[in-house]
């Protein structure tokens, strides 16, 4: 362990770095899942996994990218576990997730949150990593375990989807206001 002065000093440094990224992990998990309580569970479980695996972390590298990858993989395994339990294929689960998001729409803070949850999961992840969390395409591709070109494509499609949905919402709101006024 070249960076280690003593185990306790290294652990303390790791703990401080881990604590500093918790708010970012919460924001990423909230965006991925659309559910605050589930997101916080994911973050806590991912933080424990990161802590357990701290020997593998190289001090001074990107703690945020490392922990985002852990959280992302944990989220997907939770989805797969849920799918096994319900014995449904992936397409059905994805549709259910989108339907859940639609049904919870009145609880969303704003149109942006609702639109985000309507995106295909891999596009939502991509735009959260690059557009919201500020990762480079290269970092985001490493976190998601895909080629950079795939990540760029997902981000572009997510952006197009969001632009279309939010523009449509604007039009619909204007129409509603117009109908109410008449």
């Amino acid at each position, binding site marked *: 362990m070249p960076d280690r002065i003593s185990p306790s000093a290294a652990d303390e440094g790791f703990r401080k770095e881990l604590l500093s990224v918790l708010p970012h992990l919460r924001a990423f998990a909230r965006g991925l899942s659309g559910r605050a309580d589930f997101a916080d569970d994911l973050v*806590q479980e991912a933080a424990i996994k990161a802590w357990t695996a701290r020997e593998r972390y190289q001090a001074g590298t990107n703690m945020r990218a490392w922990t985002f990858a852990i959280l992302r993989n944990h989220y997907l395994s939770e989805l797969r576990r849920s799918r096994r339990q319900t014995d449904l294929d992936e397409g059905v689960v994805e549709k259910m997730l989108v339907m859940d998001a639609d049904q919870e729409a009145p609880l969303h803070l704003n149109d942006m949150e609702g639109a*985000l949850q309507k995106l295909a999961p891999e596009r939502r992840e991509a735009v959260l990593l690059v557009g919201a969390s500020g990762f480079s395409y290269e970092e985001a591709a490493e976190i998601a375990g895909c080629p950079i070109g795939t990540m760029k494509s997902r981000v572009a499609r997510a952006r197009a989807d969001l632009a279309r949905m939010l523009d449509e919402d604007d039009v619909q709101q204007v129409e509603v206001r117009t109908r109410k006024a008449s």
Partner: protein
Amino acid sequence: MNQPNGRGTPGRMPGLPPEVRRDGEPGWAGGLRKLYNSVVEEPLPDSFKDLLKKLDDDGDA
């Protein structure tokens, strides 16, 4: 659990989200970052105190 090698964009601290406002981008792009940052800025809920305590306990063990 592979560790991404990225170290952030040059010229900005890794781990920090981008500014909320940028020139020449659609309004929703700033809205997305605003949504993200609103969660980042929330205080950690009480449930996380147990996590922090666990990390402390494990670290001392």
